[in-house]
């Protein structure tokens, strides 16, 4: 466990926005270089945004060549330490399929995968998934809550020591250590178990974002990381305290959930973020760290890594090196064998 003295840092990447000049390196190579750079800087994780289709009018709605979970798998093979969190829709996937995808990604990445689920309904998404009417906000909330419970339940269907690999005895796994989920709910019915082994970090990370006030309890009960939009700095501490209180009410240690504030660089011409701003909000206990939404220019990451990080490290506010190999270990969260 960490002692909370240093902040956690994520960068959000929009694959469609990674660019650059036509005819240069393949798109994947450029993205991989960005993530490798973030890894060299010891950042906790990259968050690969995804929506289908991209919100109209959004600055990142250029055609992206990749869907986030497939991109995560590919990035996992060209990195070794940094956490990889991909957005994936609760409307676009059935919970069994999505749980399986992320469990698999976690094994591929040796315990560095996370799922970024949003509580916000994407405006046009349902229309592409045979749900042209969408869901009412309340239905969407209850459905997402149930969905998350199924996914997390499926992730725990195999005990950590379930696989025996006993060739001569003919026992591949211990039948007592595989558990049906047997979920029958309002929106879904899922028997389980998952046909993917247990995660190297026990369960992949659940990152929740897009929260409105009524979603806070769901997040406090289920999330490992909560991404909150930036707000006035003087309200941040109260918001953070409120969330941690809800976490405790749900029987979890306050430190079992990390709250990261999403910030965007000030794009006054060159994108910049000031170390003072991050230090101020972190030291006033407004959050456990930051999720930096990288703008179009890859140079923004260079600036952040070359200028801001050394300053944070000089002040003892960010780690000098990874201590473990899993995403949970970077974040100081329990789970897996790598603490």
């Amino acid at each position: 466990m960490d002692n909370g003295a240093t902040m956690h840092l994520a960068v959000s990447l929009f694959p469609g926005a990674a660019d650059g000049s036509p005819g240069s390196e393949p798109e994947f190579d450029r993205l991989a270089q960005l993530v490798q750079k973030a890894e060299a800087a010891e950042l906790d994780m990259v968050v690969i945004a995804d929506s289908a289709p991209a919100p109209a009018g959004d600055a990142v709605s250029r055609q992206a060549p990749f869907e986030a979970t497939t991109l995560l798998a590919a990035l996992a093979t060209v990195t070794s330490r940094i956490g990889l969190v991909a957005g994936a829709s609760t409307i676009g996937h059935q919970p069994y399929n999505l749980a399986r995808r992320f469990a698999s990604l976690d094994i591929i990445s040796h315990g560095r995968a996370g799922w970024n689920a949003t509580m916000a309904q994407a405006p046009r998404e349902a229309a592409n998934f045979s749900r042209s009417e969408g869901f009412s906000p309340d239905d969407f909330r209850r459905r997402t809550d149930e969905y998350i419970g199924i996914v997390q339940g499926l992730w725990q269907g195999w005990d950590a020591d379930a696989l025996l690999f006993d060739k001569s005895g003919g026992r591949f796994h211990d039948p007592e250590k595989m558990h049906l989920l047997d979920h029958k709910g309002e929106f879904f019915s899922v028997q389980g178990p998952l046909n993917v082994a247990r995660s190297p970090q026990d369960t992949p990370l659940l990152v929740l974002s897009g929260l409105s006030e009524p979603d806070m309890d769901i997040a406090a009960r289920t999330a490992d990381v909560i991404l909150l939009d930036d707000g006035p700095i003087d309200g941040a501490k109260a918001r953070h305290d409120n969330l941690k209180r809800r976490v405790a009410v749900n029987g979890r240690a306050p430190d079992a959930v990390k709250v990261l504030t999403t910030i965007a660089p000030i794009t006054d011409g060159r994108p910049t973020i000031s170390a003072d701003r991050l230090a101020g909000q972190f030291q006033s206990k407004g959050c456990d760290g930051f999720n930096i939404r990288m703008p179009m220019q890859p140079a923004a990451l260079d600036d952040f890594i070359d200028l801001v990080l050394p300053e944070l490290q000089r002040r003892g506010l960010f780690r000098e090196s990874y201590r473990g190999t899993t995403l949970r270990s970077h974040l100081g969260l329990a789970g897996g064998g790598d603490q």
Partner: protein
Amino acid sequence: MTAASRQMKLGAFLWATGHHIAAWRHPKAHVMAGVDIDHYIQLARTAEAAKFDMVFCEDAAGLREANVGIASQTSRSIGFEPISLLSALAVQTSRIGLVSTASTSYNEPYGLARTFLSLDHLSGGRAGWNLVTSASPIEAANFGSTGLKPHADRYERAREFAEVVTGLWHGGASGHDGQSFSVRDPLDLPRSPQGAPVMVQAGASDVGRDLAARTADVVFTAAQTFEEAKAFYDDLKGRMAAYGREPDDIKIMPGVAPVVAETEAEAREKHEELQELIPDDVGVALLSSYLSISDLWRYPIDGPLPELPESEGMKSRQALVVEQSRRDGLSIRQLARHFAGARGHWRIVGTAAQVADELQARFEGGAADGFNVMPSWFPGELDAFATLVVPELQRRGLFRRDYEGRTLRDHLGLKRPA
């Protein structure tokens, strides 16, 4: 391509610890295949070095076997989800095609089209989708409580699914509003590097064949004898004209499970070694699942297969097994053992020359355009095929010595869609 230079297509069918049900118990099999990505990367590189057209992954969204006591004696209850697996392989290989199974029963076309197109971009135009409908009640229980849908309904949904996916890949306009699906927007990804990912199909029933004749680029099938393979080949190619397609627009690649060694005796010994590792209850359970009946174990194991009710599951595979049991007069135990080796696929045990002879006969006899190779265990039997059989096929001019193009469509000699 002229007849003289026609070359066979080869897929390397990667699956768990191997295609033989007891593969994982083989002393040299990599027992942790289902949790070791590096193992799969190595297999894909072996296949690529041998110039295979593609690696192929099967899929099911659930356990293979409901009886947990049986399931725990096999290695198939856990493994990688294949689309994430192939996405990882995409950047760890450079030429070989990457084909994954995905079901039309429990996905939505917009999401699946987008995911495969993303895999296609990651791989520079080497992705393919093997369209299946899901026939297993175990899978059905993971997607609602209404049970398995009838065969005809599954195929009607599959037909519409394929139409939407190919429409989206071809950049087609949006606004599909059909029986099973509605989709509003075009995909938010650029066009595929190979025009569109390759469409593979595996169903061999009558409706399955029609769907394949209409939409498939590659057909994967199971056939035991030359006659069965030839009849399927001619029937499927014969159906294509009705959809305005040329016979060569589809490559038919039956599964083949070779056990190859330097000598025939050694190959037979290798095969027997694996057969001896099959527990009877595991063999009977596997056979039952493919026959879509649940109580085969009630019948005397050394007696004949009982009369079976018509299946809502895998119709064509049931017929194939029943036909074989009657033809060869096999008991349940014998049939189960035989079936467990390759799940009803064609098996060849022998030297490289013998295996090549058999493949050549079906290829030149107009019963196959190539083969999906199903090694009995990994990595050993894939290595054996790559180092013994592939060079023999190359010497005979039946298989490429190097890749000529970059994309899976290039390898397969398929037209790029307009």
